[in-house]
C-alpha cells in the first residue's frame, strides 16, 4: 500500500478565491490522480497528474479551473481556481500501487 497525506483536510473559502491542495506520498509512484466528490455523489476523476508534463484532464475539467502540478514522483498539487459554491466538494488524491488504487484522506472544501 501507500501512505498518502493531503493538506488541508478541510477549509472554508470565499467565492472568487483560489485554494491549493497538496498531496504527499511516502514512496515514488508513477501514476497519481485527482478525484472530486460532490455532496452526496460518487467520485469523478478530474485528471491524471503527469510527472514533468502537463496533466491529462477528463471531459468537463479544464486546466484554467483546476491547474495541477507534479514536480516529482512523490508530490502533486491541485488548485481550485476562482471558486464558486458549486466547487464545494471533497477533493481526493490517489495513487496506483501494484495495480491497486489508494486514496488520501481527502480535502473537504466549502465555498461560501
Amino acid at each position, binding site marked *: 500500500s501507500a501512505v498518502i497525506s493531503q493538506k488541508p483536510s478541510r477549509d472554508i473559502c470565499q467565492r472568487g478565491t483560489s485554494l491549493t491542495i497538496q498531496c504527499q506520498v511516502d514512496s515514488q509512484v508513477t501514476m497519481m*490522480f485527482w478525484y472530486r466528490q460532490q455532496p452526496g455523489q460518487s467520485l*469523478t476523476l478530474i485528471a491524471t497528474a503527469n510527472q514533468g508534463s502537463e496533466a491529462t484532464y477528463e471531459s468537463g475539467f479544464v486546466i484554467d479551473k483546476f491547474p495541477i502540478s507534479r514536480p516529482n514522483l512523490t508530490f502533486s498539487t491541485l488548485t481550485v481556481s476562482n471558486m464558486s459554491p458549486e466547487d464545494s466538494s471533497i477533493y481526493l488524491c490517489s495513487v496506483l500501487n501494484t495495480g*491497486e*488504487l489508494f486514496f488520501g*484522506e481527502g480535502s*473537504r472544501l466549502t465555498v461560501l
Partner: protein
Amino acid sequence: GIQVEQSPPDLILQEGANSTLRCNFSDSVNNLQWFHQNPWGQLINLFYIPSGTKQNGRLSATTVATERYSLLYISSSQTTDSGVYFCAATTLRGSGGSNYKLTFGKGTLLTVNP
C-alpha cells in the same frame, strides 16, 4: 466507457445481521475494487478483486468476471460498518492496452443500528 451499477442504493441493518452488496459492470475488467467511505469521508480499500474470491475477517468478496458482477458480503455487521460502500472498475477495452481510470458506482449507503 465502462458502466458500474451498485445495488441496493440504501440498506439498513440491525447489528449482527449479514448483508450482500452487488456491483454490476458493463464490460470486461482488468481492475475491480471495493471501498468503504467512513463518515469522515476517508476511502478505505477493502478488496482488489478483478476475479475470484477473497476474505478479510467478516468481509468477503467474489467477482464473476464472465458474468460481469461482483458481490461484497458483510457478516455479523457492526455499527462501525456504517458508511458508503463503493465499487469501482476499469476496462482495457478502447484504452490502447492500459487504463487506470477507475469508474465508480454510485455506492450503497449502509446504516447499522445498535
